[in-house]
């Protein structure tokens, strides 16, 4: 199994591929079914955000090993308009699009670690990690 892989996130179809590849990685890392479902769902939310708000980008998958524990880290990156108010964007139900406003906050709840970087005019980078 590779320890690092980058996938495009540009289309509807790419979201499906991201879900499938993240699932394969989670299975290879021996994640439980619930853990697999959580990280795949989080990946689906962030992939859609990357397209809808970032104009498309990439996701990087990394398998992590820290002592006895293993993890899966996903980094979604786009060069879109960025998010002017991060605190607001992380609030449940807040959306500038026509979704439910659960993408970012939901992905955060479904992950063990969450990190977001964004600068207006430069883009957005969201990193989530789930440990087994």
């Amino acid at each position, binding site marked *: 199994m590779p320890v690092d892989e980058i996938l495009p996130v540009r289309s509807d179809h790419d979201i499906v591929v991201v879900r499938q590849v993240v699932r394969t990685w989670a299975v290879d890392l021996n994640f439980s079914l619930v853990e697999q479902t959580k990280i795949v769902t989080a990946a689906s939310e962030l992939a859609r955000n990357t397209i809808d708000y970032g104009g498309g980008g990439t996701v990087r998958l990394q398998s992590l090993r820290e002592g006895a524990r293993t993890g899966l880290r996903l980094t979604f990156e786009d060069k879109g308009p960025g998010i002017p108010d991060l605190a607001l964007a992380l609030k449940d139900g807040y959306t500038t699009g026509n*979704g439910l406003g659960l993408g970012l906050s939901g992905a955060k709840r479904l992950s063990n670690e969450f990190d977001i970087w964004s600068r207006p005019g430069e883009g957005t980078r969201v990193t989530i990690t789930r440990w087994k």
Partner: protein
Amino acid sequence: MERIPILKMNEFLLVSIQVDMHDRLAMTLQDDLTERIVRDRARGVLIDISSLEIVDSFIGRMIGNIAAMSRVLDAETVVVGMRPAVAITLVELGLSLPGVRTSLNVDKGMELLRASLAGGNGNGHPDAGR
């Protein structure tokens, strides 16, 4: 164009989602179902999601929309077969599918639809007038 088949059984429409749905396919299903409810004069819609490995906010929103639209068109929707891992994830994601009726399997879902039709008061929606 790729489509999810909709089966008619008496006054009910049955849908079994067997593919990893991309967003456009979900939107198409939503449109097709509302059209078929009217065309087939359906009184109930049963959606089997037992093959779905995840339900994210987009698919969740689609399910909620179908339930709301069918209600406006005088039909009941019941979603059956949600996997336990999907249910756990959905709640943690923050989606509780308000207004969507669920059953464990197709048999129980059909029972629920029939019961809600039988319990109707003759002027349409079973909850009308309560």
